[in-house]
């Protein structure tokens, strides 16, 4: 049985101890960054790169858009049909340095009323709970308190 330390997908984020980050890869030839990771070929059409190195993505970004799921998604989403459905938010976040938008669930308790396009959010470790007590680690986006927002980002 999967434990809460098992990532929902291997190699997409750090273990959660200390500085939690999403993990992408960067092409050695052209510098293009990929998430989810590309490990064999660069997808840039004019790049023949075949060597890509693991790279942590920016910890913070700004909300590109957001929504929520009011109904239970179909399998393979891990969900216990015996429990009432609790909506969660989905947040698409634009990372400035990578100039890339990454989708993720909002941290528990974050609702669409808490969100706005352009708001700063930070990646944090999260848990996906499935049937029969199974769970997996994942990433969540959490709004950054106004006093912590970095002027430069």
């Amino acid at each position, binding site marked *: 049985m999967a434990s809460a330390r098992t990532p*929902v*997908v291997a190699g997409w984020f750090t273990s959660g101890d200390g500085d939690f980050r999403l993990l*992408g890869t960067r092409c050695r030839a052209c*510098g*293009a*960054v*990929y*998430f*989810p990771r590309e490990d064999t070929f660069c*997808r*840039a*059409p004019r790049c023949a790169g075949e060597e890509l190195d693991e790279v942590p993505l920016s910890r913070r970004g700004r909300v*590109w*858009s*957001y*929504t*929520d*799921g*009011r*109904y239970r*998604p*179909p*399998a*393979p*989403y*891990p*969900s216990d049909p015996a429990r009432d459905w609790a909506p*969660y938010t*989905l947040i*698409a976040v634009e990372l400035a*340095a*990578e*100039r*890339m*938008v*990454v*989708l*993720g*669930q909002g941290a528990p308790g974050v609702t*669409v009323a808490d969100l*706005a*396009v*352009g708001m700063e959010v930070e990646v944090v470790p999260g848990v*996906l709970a499935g049937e029969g007590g199974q769970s997996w680690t*994942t990433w969540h986006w959490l709004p950054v308190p106004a006093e912590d927002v970095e002027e430069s980002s």
Partner: protein
Amino acid sequence: MTGEVAVIGAGMHPWGKWGRSFVEYGTKAARAALTDAGLDWPDIASVVGANTVRCGYPGQVAGATFARALGWQGARVTSVYAACASGARAIDTARAQILSGMVDTVLVVGADAAPKGFFAPSGGDRPDDPDWLRFRVLGATNPAYFALWARRRMALCGDTPEDFAAVKVKNAAAGAANRHARYRSPVTAEEVAASPVVADPLRLLDICATSDGAAALVLSSVDFARRHGVADPVRIRAVSSVAPVYPRTALDLPDIATDSAPDALVPDGFRPSIARAAYEEAGIGPEDLSLAEVYDLSTALELEWYEDLGLCAAGEGAKLLREGATALGGRIPVNPSGGLASFGEAVPAQAIAQVCELAQQLRGRAGDRQVAGARVGITANQGLFGHGSSVIAVR
């Protein structure tokens, strides 16, 4: 310019939730198209089927499935898949066969039998499949993506939920006059506002249903059409089948993230490029259009297409709607068929159904939905995994 092919027959099976086989729907649509064309099935030289991934092996060899159901008569068979753009790829393949001189007449068929509720990925444990991953990791359904785009329009363009509801009201009014539509009742803005939120800000009546349905066309060379007694046939002048250009910076189904573009010159969006390729091939522009059929997976997405087709400037889709320009009787009616709002998605059939509507409109046979003096029509849609499609027909 590539050259034109004639649309000499169009047929559909009414859309709904009938609980029968997609083969039955497609065969009925094919027979209706053949009758409309005044041709006997054995006269057809080639069959191109738009595949469905939901109906087992027969769905993945749709051309052969329909040829067998109509009665093997030796015609060439081809089956194509391009997700929601499969129907347009089938039309594109038929056109290529005709323009190359390979055949004179082609039957194009698409049909589906859709499950209730959200579309879901194929079964199994497939962590190398982006479509499987977005459900597994995030529970990101199709309406979730429609909602992300809708929210972004609200933030960037000032669209409101009332604008989105007005799209549904417009399309339901047109669909009420279409005997092939699944939903044939007018809908009010109050009814949209009272329907449950599925994915904020979109409500149930903002999002298209999943349907059973079928559509078919008989295409021929223009010479064949004239020999066959159609002096002034509807002609397909362009079929756009472009793919996106790297790097893509707008989040799109089924991806969890966009490409990264720190230093790259970011190309224009994918959807505008779909229509641009069609306009260039046809040698016309948006100002020449009489009508448009667009892929309104959600009410908000229809407004996006107005801009992508060049019917108005970027960000002004809602303004065009509020002016009444895109309603029947307006300057440029959009979705006079009733659109997906009235039909629901029957994936391989929808892009063919869009061209059926163009054919009826350009022949002046659309009844209460008729766009007066229609001469030029465009369709637009987009299939999962980077399949653009747009067809321009003229008469």
